């Protein structure tokens, strides 16, 4: 394996790798650092790559280990993270002013409900234990096979299936209880509420109907609805989408709120 091939492969997977690390850390700065450290480590350890997996899998394994080291000491976010952060945001005038500024000036400052669904998943999935979170992202969002994930997190395939199953089951339960898009009794309406603030010209109901998960909510089973949610998440690159500046600003707000919340808990 030569270093030119590594550089080319790294560039090819840089986009997914960045969004994967962002979804783990919720910090753009930490993401940049971990992605850079991943490259440096891969470069330094290239001789140890024996080809037992694809180069992409090997790169994701290095990045996952760095992210795990970074996150291990951090507490999990609560399942009702969006409620807690909403309350803080409502009392934070500068946050809304900055967001409005981004909305008006940035070409990547649009508000779309689908983008918020992906953002919401990033926040809520931080309530999972670390291994379940990693495995869920790798399988459902980045389309790795069970065998590849076992190589990435250095676990047996059976345990990867356990983490996937429990992570999925937990997310399914949380979203079923909370998300008003799939359950009329759901307590969270944040995506449509924010649509009213940031995109008042767009009718929220018309926008919701364009999302397959919401359209099929009344007839589809919970597993299928979760698959549709993952389809939305897969379709959005949090660094490149039309709403990335707005969503990254919002994510940074939530990260800071959670840091303080967990510190004082």
């Amino acid at each position, binding site marked *: 394996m030569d270093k030119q091939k590594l550089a080319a492969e790294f560039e090819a997977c840089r986009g997914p790798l960045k969004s994967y690390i962002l979804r783990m850390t919720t910090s753009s700065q930490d993401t940049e650092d971990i992605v850079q450290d991943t490259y440096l480590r891969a470069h330094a350890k290239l001789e140890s790559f024996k080809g037992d997996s694809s180069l992409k899998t090997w790169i994701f394994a290095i990045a996952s280990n760095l992210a795990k080291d970074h996150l291990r000491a951090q507490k999990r976010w609560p399942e009702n993270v969006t409620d807690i952060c909403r309350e803080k945001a409502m009392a934070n005038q500068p946050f809304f002013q900055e967001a409005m500024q981004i909305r008006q000036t940035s070409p990547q400052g649009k508000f779309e409900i689908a983008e918020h669904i992906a953002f919401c998943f990033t926040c809520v999935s931080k309530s999972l234990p670390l291994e379940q979170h990693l495995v869920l992202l790798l399988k459902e969002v980045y389309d790795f*096979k069970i065998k590849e994930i076992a190589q990435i997190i250095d676990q047996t395939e*059976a*345990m990867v*299936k*356990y983490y996937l*199953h*429990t992570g999925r089951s937990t997310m399914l*339960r949380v979203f079923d209880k909370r998300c008003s898009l799939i359950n009329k009794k759901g307590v969270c309406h944040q995506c449509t509420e924010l649509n009213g603030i940031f995109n008042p010209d767009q009718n929220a109901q018309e926008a919701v109907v364009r999302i397959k998960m919401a359209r099929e909510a009344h007839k589809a089973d919970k597993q299928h609805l979760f698959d549709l949610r993952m389809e939305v998440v897969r379709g959005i690159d949090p660094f490149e989408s039309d709403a990335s500046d707005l969503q990254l600003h919002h994510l940074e707000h939530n990260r800071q709120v959670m840091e303080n919340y967990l510190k004082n808990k």
Partner: protein
Amino acid sequence: MTIPSFSAQNGKANTVKKTFSRQTSIRIDINSDASVIWTLLTNASDYPRWNSTINSLEGEIKKGEQIRLKVHLDPKRTFKIKVREMEPEKRMVWGDGQGTRTFTLSKNKEGVWNFAMTEKIGGLLYPLYARMIPSFDEAFEAFASDLKKEAELIVNTKN
């Protein structure tokens, strides 16, 4: 040591009553992986998700730790139980002043995992309160069946 009743029918509970004790046992074959079965048995907070007999289980299932268990059979009561023995993927013993529950995992000749669970309650005062303790048979059967269903579902996840 409490020995599971291996004569018990697969998935069917068996209770032996004596003057000073009562012992309920169950065994069931599970086509899964030992690590998955064991993780299900030792992840306390995850129990209510898959186990229909348990309302909540708090604490860490590690040797020497105390766990707080609430069950459907007696939902108002919290059982404070100590994890007395732990041999990963083989054997685990929980107990309190009244009884001892032993979980064992072993592989049969066909490569299928056999889960066994036995609870022995008793003591000198046992005859005084014996009538107040409900039968464990149904709860044991549900526990074993839930464990089998969940562990087999997990390993059958698509690759």
